[in-house]
């Protein structure tokens, strides 16, 4: 249990660092492009300010990623012994992608006025592309744990290993798509929210307004597209992991016209959900595109193979709810962009975006909880149980406390650092920037 908590904690932090690290370079590239096209120094300042954010998150993401690559073995040696060679392919490629990202970031951060300006811009784009690629590869490895393929299990021995097939497991595409869109939505809203706050406080309005618009448009488009990728993901889960889907929906009874259950408190003992809104037939429709086909409920899944229902259900509801809220805000933004330009300077409009700052990341964490907790008691779906994979070393509890303390300190420190960066914007970027070269 301590091992699981430690892993959850480490991944929970890594997911935030790496989402920002892989999405912000795209914002940066857009504003850099605007600068190169318009020669407006504000865009150069925005690019530089964001590139510092990217550097901070890249470094912390890299460090937390290194820690994770060790933790896999430190905490789950039995899992890694068998799974390493099978699902290692995406990790080997991820190493390459990440390395390229690090090199490109070196060029970008230290390359102002040193290189041809379009080459310099291009290195920034490479940072984004290779970051996104590493994200996709890591999610593909996680997808393998949900839909293990590329090997045959005979008498406890893993044979016929095919790493390529394992990498392109059935769930990789739906999971990677869902995660990437989520990363764009979450980062877009988070960055836009911070800039909205600064606009509301009337600090460097021009600087922050331009930043806000770039970040928000990424977040908005992603938030509006997300339900589509969510639908693809849910269909995949229904096919491969009926127990997870049933827990997500707190769907106890297998019956025709399976209802979609919204909200409510799952009562595991009496196998029902209290205070929920039920839409008859909707779950069947969403999974099978027809209202009648029954969806497998928890009654058909042995108790020993059921994930914790309440946690999975709440996390799923939270994710969907926040996703919907962000989508609604996205629509408001598009209306403002198309019809009501005046909204951009209205306090209520900015306040909505400030309120939405953390929503995307809460949704990301909730979604990740759904996929990980929903897979329990398995570490490899249907193949290896989490309890059989854990390290034999006693006293993992202490290690968990240590890591908790470290990550807690780290997150406070990063917040502190970003706060100081944002606070210094007037000093760093307010005056007419002196042109070097």
């Amino acid at each position, binding site marked *: 249990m301590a091992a699981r908590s430690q892993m959850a904690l480490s991944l929970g932090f890594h997911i935030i660092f790496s989402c920002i690290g892989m999405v912000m370079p795209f914002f940066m590239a857009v504003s850099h492009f605007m600068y190169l096209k318009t020669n407006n120094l504000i865009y150069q300042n925005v690019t530089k300010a964001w590139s510092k954010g990217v550097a901070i998150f890249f470094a912390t993401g890299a460090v937390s990623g*290194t820690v994770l690559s060790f933790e896999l073995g430190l905490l789950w040696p039995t899992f890694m012994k068998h799974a390493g060679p099978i699902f290692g392919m995406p990790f080997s490629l991820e190493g390459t992608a990440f390395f390229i990202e690090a090199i490109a970031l070196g060029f970008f951060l230290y390359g102002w006025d040193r290189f041809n300006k379009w080459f310099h811009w291009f290195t920034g784009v490479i940072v984004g592309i290779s970051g996104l690629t590493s994200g996709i590869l890591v999610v593909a490895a996680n997808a393998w744990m949900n839909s293990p393929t590329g090997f045959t299990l005979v008498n406890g021995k893993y044979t016929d290993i095919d790493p390529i097939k394992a990498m392109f497991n059935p769930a990789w595409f739906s999971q990677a798509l869902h995660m990437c869109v989520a990363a764009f939505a979450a980062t877009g809203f988070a960055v836009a929210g911070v800039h909205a706050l600064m606009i509301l406080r009337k600090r460097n309005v021009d600087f922050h307004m331009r930043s806000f618009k770039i970040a928000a448009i990424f977040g908005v488009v992603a938030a509006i597209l997300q339900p589509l990728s969510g639908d693809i993901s849910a269909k995949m889960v229904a096919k491969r992991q009926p127990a997870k889907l049933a827990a997500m929906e707190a769907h106890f009874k297998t019956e025709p016209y399976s209802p979609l259950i919204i909200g409510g408190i799952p009562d595991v003992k009496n196998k029902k959900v209290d205070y929920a809104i039920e839409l008859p037939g909707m779950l069947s429709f969403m999974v099978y595109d027809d209202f009648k086909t029954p969806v497998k409920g928890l009654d058909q899944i042995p108790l020993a193979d059921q994930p914790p229902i309440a946690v999975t259900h709440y996390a799923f509801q939270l994710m969907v709810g926040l996703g919907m809220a962000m989508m609604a805000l996205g629509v408001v933004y598009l209306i403002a962009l198309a019809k009501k330009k005046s909204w951009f300077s209205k306090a209520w409009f900015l306040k909505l975006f400030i309120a939405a700052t953390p929503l995307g990341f809460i949704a990301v964490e909730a979604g990740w909880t759904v996929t990980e907790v929903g897979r329990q008691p398995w570490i490899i779906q249907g193949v290896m149980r989490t309890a059989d994979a854990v390290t034999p070393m006693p006293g993992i509890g202490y290690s968990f406390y240590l890591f908790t303390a470290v990550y807690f300190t780290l997150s406070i420190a990063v917040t502190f650092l970003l706060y100081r960066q944002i606070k210094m914007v007037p000093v760093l970027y307010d005056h007419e920037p002196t042109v070097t070269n």
Partner: protein
Amino acid sequence: MMIYVVMGFLWLALLLYLVMGGADFGAGIVELFTSNANKNRTRRIMYNAIGPIWEANHMWLIIAIVILFVGFPVIYTTMSTYLHIPLVIMLMGIIARGTALTFRNYDAVTDNMQAVYNKIFVYSSFITPLFLGIIAGSAVSGRIDTGATDFMTAYVYSWLNWFSVAIGFFTVALCGFLAAIYLIGEAQDPEETRRFIRKARFMNIAAVVAGGLVFIASVEEKIPLVQWVFGNIIGILAVSAASLSLGVMWYLIIKGKRFIIRVLAGFQMTMILLTTTYKHYPNIVILKNGGYLSLLADRGADKAIEGLGIALLLGSLFILPALGYLIYSFQRKDKGDVAGH
């Protein structure tokens, strides 16, 4: 066939991590042993030198780990089970160091927080290679006991012994030595050059002393290190080449050469790694019961090795030219900047 490609990459990743990552850690170690009066200046030169490439240095370790867990899962999991404690300490060091370095460069407000970052940076620069060395020493010290039933034997004495600890200090001294040699080439006036030469001499002596301690500890712990190093022709040749190049290097330092001394320092590291790995090849972990974990016998499935090898070859096609160009352009431009100001 692919297995040899993979092994080659593993060795190369370790070497590059030792040389480039080592110089990187060493920068913090040099700072630790620099008087307060000169600290700020040393720090600035050091940051200009390692800033653009430090993220890349970090990657060699990740590559080595990925090679281990994809290609040699038994070795990876044995080490991560029995060397859990030093690995966790090393990870803490990596976290602290990476964060402190980022912070001292990206904190927009300049105040006494800088002093905190500096403290964290220099101490973690010391602790991380110390434990890296301990882990490397433990792999061959024959103290990893897979049959142990009590906590201390299985998880503490596996790495807490004189031999491993001596190797830890030897690693620290090597890192400091690499960094000091590297910094000689970055110094901007004769006074500074002299200062870094003194540092390099100090680190060189420290490395020799720590190396001596490793041999003494090996006798104490009944590890046949002398026979491993000098019992074969490659070992003798490598040690002689390293010693010879050390003499040449010091001659060239006094002559004021800047680039070739870096190459020679890198060459010495290569020889050290060659000596320490050659005798045991293909074994990389020696167990208490006299058994070995071997890169050949304990490798993963053929398909996995094949995929890994292809991924590494493909990756190096992209990485090596880009990395080379990165280092090259900052070397060149730095010199240009200095002249221009």
